[in-house]
Every structure is written in structure tokens, then in C-alpha cells.
């Protein structure tokens, strides 16, 4: 049973550029959440998608946007990259009504130079 798959694993971008990160949820899961984990910190919630709609959002600017596809996979887009956007981006999936913990991917390490 495939877990959560994220791509790419590492990425280097220049300030001002745009980036797209991808996530395939665990089989049977329909909800995808994205988290940003800066070095030495705990993950911070960015937003959550269910039924192709953004359901809730953390304290992140509009430069961060996302999408969920009919097959439940998701993308995280970040525009106008800043040095401070350098972090590990984690995708987590679950299914509504489970009341269970999320299943996480191994993340995408984004470095902005």
C-alpha cells in the first residue's frame, strides 16, 4: 500500500521565481494538508484541501496557493519566492471522519538562493 508520495525531493530556486510541489495521498485518503517546516522548528499548517476546495488556511500569505485534483492529488504553488521560504514542505493525507492521525510524506526540501 503506497503511502504519501511527494515530488521533487529537493529543489533549488532563485528569489522571485515560482515553484510547484506535488503530492499523491495515501490510497483511500481524500484530504490533503500542506505544512512548512523551517529548520529547527515544528511544522506549520499552510492549508487543507478536500473535494478540490481549500477548506482551511493557516497564517500564510496569498503567495502560497494550492490545488486538489479529482484523483485527490495536490499541488502547492509558491510565487515570488523569498529567502525565508526555504524549508521542508510536508504533505499529509487523511480521510474525513477518521479522527485519526495524518500520514505524512517525506517532504520536499526547498532552498531559495
Amino acid at each position, binding site marked *: 500500500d503506497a503511502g504519501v508520495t511527494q515530488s521533487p525531493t529537493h529543489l533549488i530556486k532563485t528569489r522571485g521565481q515560482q515553484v510547484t510541489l506535488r503530492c499523491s495521498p495515501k490510497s483511500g485518503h481524500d484530504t490533503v*494538508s500542506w505544512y512548512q517546516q523551517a529548520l529547527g522548528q*515544528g511544522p506549520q499548517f499552510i492549508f*487543507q484541501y*478536500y473535494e478540490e476546495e481549500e477548506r*482551511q488556511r493557516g497564517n500564510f500569505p496569498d503567495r502560497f496557493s494550492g490545488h486538489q485534483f479529482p484523483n485527490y492529488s495536490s499541488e502547492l504553488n509558491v510565487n515570488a519566492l523569498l529567502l525565508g521560504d526555504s524549508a*521542508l514542505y510536508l504533505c499529509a493525507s487523511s480521510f474525513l471522519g477518521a*479522527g485519526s*492521525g495524518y*500520514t505524512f510524506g517525506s517532504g520536499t*526540501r526547498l532552498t531559495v538562493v
Partner: protein
Amino acid sequence: AQTVTQSQPEMSVQEAETVTLSCTYDTSESDYYLFWYKQPPSRQMILVIRQEAYKQQNATENRFSVNFQKAAKSFSLKISDSQLGDAAMYFCAYRNRDRGSTLGRLYFGRGTQLTVWP
């Protein structure tokens, strides 16, 4: 807003010994979930143990157990018979209840780096 505090940035334990990691949280909710996640160098966040706030009985998973004190808003993790493979960053996390079509989000502490000595 919910907050999660882990006051121990680093802990160490001898192999086969027992170690306790501390966590406190703040919430005005009465029904929620608490988790401990392990993050090894591979970066994947792995669920260690889960506690539902309405359950008074402390959760256990093999060598891992929790001490859940709801009134004190405390949720510590005890690792018994520590193994070299337990070495990792441990995160305490709070999750509020699902509401309608919105899944409860996770709030994480800053983590405790656990070192296991042979």
C-alpha cells in the same frame, strides 16, 4: 489559538533505559486529539502514539506510553527499553475535532531531539 510547548530541546538516554519527553498545550476545546510523531533523518513524520481527549485511559503502543493529564493540559511520552532506532526528533501535536467538511488541523511543538547512547 491552540499552542503546543515542548520545553526540552534535547534529551539523551542509554540503550535499554527509560526516558520521558514532556509536552504541554493550551486550548479552550474539550474534545480533541493529541499525538506524538517521530521524525528521523529520512524526514518522514511517523505516528508514534495517539490519545483522544475524552478517554481517561492513557494510550500505550508497545514500548511507548503516554501520561495524559487533561486538567493540567500535559501530555508526556515515555519510551521504555530504549533502542538505538528510537533516536530521532519527536514532535508533540494537537489536533482539533473535525467540523463538517473540515478536517482538524495539526498544531506542533518545536520538537525534542532524542539521542540514544549504546
